[in-house]
């Protein structure tokens, strides 16, 4: 089998030898086109399957023909699979990861969520020059954490071509939960279009992939419910913002095939269990642009880790996973029956699906997709509409917005609303407007761990009816132990998430990466509060490399550590950072095309 592979890829073989790297061709992972970690029996103490086990791992990056959803596709493969193999390391190891570039363009791998030396972070132009075609780069770093992470290319739009995979680090000590079996569930969004063409389409025609524009029929339905004046007013408002109220995602199921472990919903990848087992599901959102709402009808899921970090367990029915986030959940199926793992795209334009079953070949009912939600007025939160802040939105699903009293927001408030003029707004007058008691520290800033006014940590976001089922919200996330650095923040750094949909420009503080003059500076070892204010009408998953962000979700000293923070439209989110990682680090929106369009900065710690 190994021979036939070599014959099929003579070029690859030569280049491998030229590269001088041991590429692990003999390992089971390299021999199958299907990711080996997607084995239906998963990982248990008994059924250990082939993975790329650390501390020494060799990875070969190629472009090759692989069937995706049964159709001819040309993804980027890692050791012959796309998405790539699971890399399994152990806390305490010194990892040596050799990456050989067999593409005809430069590549890279970023180890998402890992705390490591700046030169090993894998961002071309920030951490290192990138890996040139034919070259091998050796990443070396001590593994000082454990949990569920992932890896992906940080070069151009390669991630959209499947250049990503799971990265699992086994704990040195006992984890705060028990399980009998585990499965990795990697969510991705695949397009048969060239990613550059997708990007061009977004640049030239806003709403290119959005076929869910409101129709005349919707208009008359609205008029019936709300009256003509209110309906016309809302339409006018959205038009002024150059947005459609149905812009939930800018790349949708019209081009995407949503994959779970590389498989389409029709292919129905199956994760096996035995009745009575407690199964750990390591859910990774490795997609380029898509948020998912994940549930398993018939099973309670207990969230035990977020972004690789253990959290106090939260039993839920469903959770929303932003791009680049990871959640670990436990399920305990007691019946000898099949369950559908259903990951519905946030914009409801499609779904990824797998089956959790005691035997292969089983299937359960696929839930009905929910209706597309309208962007409600809550999206206006940070736009200076103070009267919105104190409102309790917790009981409102997107569809319940009709019942809201919009009288305080007449058309004149909206006139001339221009995102670019929003910067420099003083939000200080918003303090104290949220329901909870906000303690101030000596500097007049909110006490560490307190939720910022303007945050909506008790809401999952657009398109969710909170009354329907128990949904995970950021407020639920609570660490077991306080982070060792309990200093109050010495200063606050406020960044606005900004954009212009029509021209598909995305940025921080109104400046694209190509327009900024220098990095964002963190003083070495300072304790700072990063405040993110989303002035746009879309969610942005904001990722800081090299350092944890402690999400100030109101849990005091038990605030959770995250590598990626979802900031909802109009929301104000804050995180504490200990700037202990000297060097230059990437900081960006993890929506791939937003990052490429300019929502990217370098953070320099010195």
């Amino acid at each position: 089998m190994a021979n036939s592979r070599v014959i099929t890829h003579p070029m690859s073989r030569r280049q491998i030898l030229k590269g001088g790297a041991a590429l692990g061709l003999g390992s089971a992972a390299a021999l199958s086109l299907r990711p080996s970690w997607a084995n239906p029996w998963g990982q248990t103490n008994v059924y250990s399957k082939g993975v790329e086990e650390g501390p020494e791992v060799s990875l070969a990056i190629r472009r090759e023909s692989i069937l995706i959803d049964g159709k001819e596709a040309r993804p980027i493969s890692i050791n012959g699979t796309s998405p790539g193999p699971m890399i399994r390391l152990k806390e305490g190891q010194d990892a040596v990861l050799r990456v050989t570039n067999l593409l005809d363009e430069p590549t890279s791998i970023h180890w998402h969520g890992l705390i490591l030396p700046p030169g090993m972070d894998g961002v071309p132009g920030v951490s290192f020059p990138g890996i040139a075609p034919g070259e091998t780069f050796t990443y070396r770093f001590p593994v000082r954490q454990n949990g569920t992470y992932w890896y992906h290319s940080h070069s151009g739009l390669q991630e959209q071509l499947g250049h990503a995979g799971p990265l699992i680090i086994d704990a040195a000590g006992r984890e705060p939960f028990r399980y009998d079996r585990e499965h990795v569930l990697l969510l991705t969004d695949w397009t048969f279009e060239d990613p550059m063409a997708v990007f061009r389409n977004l640049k030239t025609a806003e709403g290119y992939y959005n076929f869910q524009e409101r129709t005349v029929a919707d208009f008359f339905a609205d008029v019936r419910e709300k009256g003509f004046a209110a309906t016309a007013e809302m339409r006018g408002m959205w038009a002024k913002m150059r947005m459609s109220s149905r812009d939930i995602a800018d790349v949708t199921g019209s081009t995407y095939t949503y994959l779970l472990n590389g498989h389409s919903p029709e292919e129905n990848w199956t994760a096996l269990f035995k009745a009575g087992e407690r199964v750990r599901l390591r859910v990774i959102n490795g997609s380029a642009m898509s948020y998912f709402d994940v549930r398993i009808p018939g099973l309670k899921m207990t969230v035990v880790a977020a972004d690789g970090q253990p959290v106090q367990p939260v039993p839920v029915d469903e959770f929303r996973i932003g791009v680049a986030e990871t959640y670990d959940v436990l399920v305990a199926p007691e019946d000898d029956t099949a369950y559908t793992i259903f990951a519905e795209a946030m914009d409801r334009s499609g779904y990824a699906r797998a089956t959790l079953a005691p035997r292969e070949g089983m299937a359960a009912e696929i839930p009905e997709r929910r209706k597309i939600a309208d962007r409600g007025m809550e999206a206006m939160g940070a736009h200076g509409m103070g009267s919105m802040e104190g409102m309790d939105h917790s009981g409102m699903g997107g569809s319940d917005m009709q019942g809201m009293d919009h009288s305080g927001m007449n058309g004149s408030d909206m006139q001339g609303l221009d995102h670019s003029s929003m910067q420099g707004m003083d939000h200080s007058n918003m303090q104290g407007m949220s329901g909870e008691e906000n303690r101030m520290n000596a500097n007049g800033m909110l006490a560490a761990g307190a939720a910022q006014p303007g945050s909506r940590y008790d809401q999952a976001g657009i398109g969710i009816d909170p009354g329907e089922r128990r949904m995970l919200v950021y407020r639920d996330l609570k660490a077991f132990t306080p982070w060792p650095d309990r200093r109050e923040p010495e200063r606050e750094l406020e960044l606005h998430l900004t954009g212009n949909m029509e021209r598909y420009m995305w940025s921080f503080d109104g400046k694209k990466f190509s327009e900024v003059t220098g990095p964002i500076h963190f003083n070495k070892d300072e304790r700072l509060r990063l405040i993110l204010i989303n002035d746009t009408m879309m969610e942005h998953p904001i990722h800081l490399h090299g350092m944890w962000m402690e999400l100030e979700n109101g849990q005091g000293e038990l605030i959770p550590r995250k590598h990626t923070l979802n900031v909802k439209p109009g929301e104000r989110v804050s995180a504490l950072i200990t700037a202990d990682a000297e060097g230059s680090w990437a900081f960006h929106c993890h929506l791939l095309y937003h990052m490429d369009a300019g929502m990217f900065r370098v953070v320099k710690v010195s």
Partner: protein
Amino acid sequence: MRKTLLTLALGLATTAAFAGAGHGGSQAAVSDADIDRTIRVEAGDMWFDSEKLNIAPGETIKFEIVNTGNVEHEFVIGDAEAQEAHRKMMQEMGGSHGGGGGHGGHEGHDMAEGEHGGSMPSVTIAPGDTAELVWTAPQNVDGLQYACNIPGHYEAGMSGNIDLQG
């Protein structure tokens, strides 16, 4: 089943309140002499150090539960059904024991049937603390579990089976 459990002699060390219901009218604390055996159980985040305990019917056990974790735990004895009902109630209450208030089952004053969870021997242990629970294993009962039903704790692994030999 519930009736059978009511006949247990049990003591809630935390509240020093004892149930006499159906126990020959005795309101007195179980004296050390009545204790056949002491079992030390470690409660961590999120586990008990044993996943199974072998106890003989009629045996009176003093459990010493040490909480070596970072968060509050409880130790509750009951069958799967009662445990689940207790769990649901805890979930609805938001998981708070509220410093001894608001949780009838843990007050220990009324072990009569009716109030949910009231019939299950239980004790709550703060992080770093040790609590005691004295319990006599019933005859002719099986399917007993010990568990922590603070929301998410059971699901994360805090349960074990009591194997009543005999």
